[in-house]
């Protein structure tokens, strides 16, 4: 629990790098209250009925976009969806022009996903609305990290001292960066595990350890978070074959039997038979679907906390 003199004072969620441990704890504490709403017979509250929110998705996304949209609708907001494939971007309009045109229609919040790192920060500079980063390149994906931390806290009752192994394509993952920042701020230990070609140089500077041995990571950890392998990375020559990747870095049923304590997480979508053996994804040690439900509650909490203040 954060103490009573604490005040949440952010207008944007651009990344967890800007948030203190108290900010993160406050969001996780408030998420409990939204989690309860989802179990009500009428899971809907009128809190954002005076808000108009634009979901600006320049990259494909199913889960994150649906999760944000549902969170917004559960809270009574008016929602507009924009996807780059069917839009003015194709006609050559710049991000700045697009967003300034949309802002002229009197919107209050923007949820943005973009392939360029820093896109959300850029929007926060050029317009007045609250900005939520739903993924910017390989930089940050703060709401995913928040829902991961919430799920861990729900399972273990704490983050401090928790041993988290993150396994897979560290190099291209925004989920990893936000998780490392958040987890280390809250006092968890993080070990990264994956092929050398997926390991960024100097990543140890983020207060994490690196191993190339999956057994070692699984023997040590409380939480094994497996990351999605983008299949096109194979064409870039970063790993020889899916089968070899699975052999060396896939979590298998034999691991669950050998190391009986860790839980399995995955940000989705799962490549069955690559990152996780199918049995592992379906086992009761995997909390993947619970992560998805929690994602909805975390996003409601973030929307709630950011919606206050200065435009009134």
């Amino acid at each position: 629990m954060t103490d009573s003199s604490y005040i949440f004072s952010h207008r944007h969620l651009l990344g967890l790098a800007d948030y203190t441990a108290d900010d993160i704890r406050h969001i996780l504490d408030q998420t409990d209250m939204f989690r309860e709403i989802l179990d009500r017979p009428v899971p809907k509250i009128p809190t954002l009925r005076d808000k108009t929110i634009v979901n600006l998705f320049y990259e494909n996304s199913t889960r994150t976009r649906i999760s944000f949209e549902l969170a917004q609708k559960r809270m009574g907001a008016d929602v507009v969806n924009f996807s780059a494939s069917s839009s003015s971007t194709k006609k050559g309009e710049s991000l700045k022009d697009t967003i300034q045109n949309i802002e002229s229609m009197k919107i209050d919040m923007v949820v943005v996903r973009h392939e360029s790192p820093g896109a959300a920060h850029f929007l926060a500079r050029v317009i007045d609305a609250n900005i939520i980063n739903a993924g910017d390149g390989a930089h940050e994906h703060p709401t995913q990290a928040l829902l991961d931390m919430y799920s861990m806290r729900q399972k273990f009752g704490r983050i401090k001292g928790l041993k988290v192994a993150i396994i897979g394509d560290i190099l291209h993952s925004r989920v990893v960066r936000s998780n490392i920042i958040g987890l280390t701020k809250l006092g968890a230990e993080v070990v990264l595990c994956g092929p050398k070609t997926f390991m960024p140089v100097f990543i140890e500077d983020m207060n994490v350890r690196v191993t190339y041995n999956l057994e070692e990571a699984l023997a040590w950890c409380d939480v094994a978070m497996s990351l999605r392998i983008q299949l096109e990375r194979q064409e870039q020559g970063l790993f020889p074959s899916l089968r070899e990747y699975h052999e060396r870095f896939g979590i298998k049923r034999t691991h669950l039997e050998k190391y009986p304590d860790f839980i399995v997480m995955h940000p989705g979508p799962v490549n069955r038979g690559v990152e996780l053996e199918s049995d592992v994804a379906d086992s009761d040690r995997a909390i993947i679907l619970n992560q998805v439900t929690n994602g909805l509650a975390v996003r409601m909490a973030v929307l709630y906390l950011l919606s206050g203040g200065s435009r009134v």
Partner: protein
Amino acid sequence: MNPQWHNPEFVKKALLLSADDMNRTFRRFAHQFIEPHDTTDQLAIIGMQTRGVYIAHRIKKQLSDSLSLDIPMGVLDVTFYRDDFRTKMKMPEVKVTEIPFDLDQKDVILVDDVLYTGRTVRAAMEALMSFGRPRSIKFCCMIDRGHRELPIVADYVGATVPTHKNEEVRVMLKDLDGEDAVYVINEPDNDE
């Protein structure tokens, strides 16, 4: 919260209800709650965060101690339903809501510490509707201090106290504040 409240030189406070008064009121509420009912099967108490929860607990305890009745109790936070939260600069902290029973066909009694503008009660009624369809909702408060802005009347009242808008009514409860008492506090620097 104004830190000066804790400084006796800045604050004039008058005792409205003593611990004995409040205990009598809890006993009266317990009897009043069950009076209109042949059976108490459908009765439920819901305490409103924060102080209403403590008051509801005390009434529930009274019902079980002296009348041997176990009435289900829930806890409600109405922040999401308020119409005035956006006039504040920061979003208020949301507290727990927990209604561990089905509300359909229940006779619900909402419990709060102070009835003032009536906006909190309105929000609470809207909130309850998302849990089900109670057969009836009644409202119980320790203090009715007047200044209603909505057409709302309490069904059970501890004490009715005409107040000035600059004054603050504080209901203190043993389990939360260490004492049972109701004070009227006159805050000289109030900017309202």
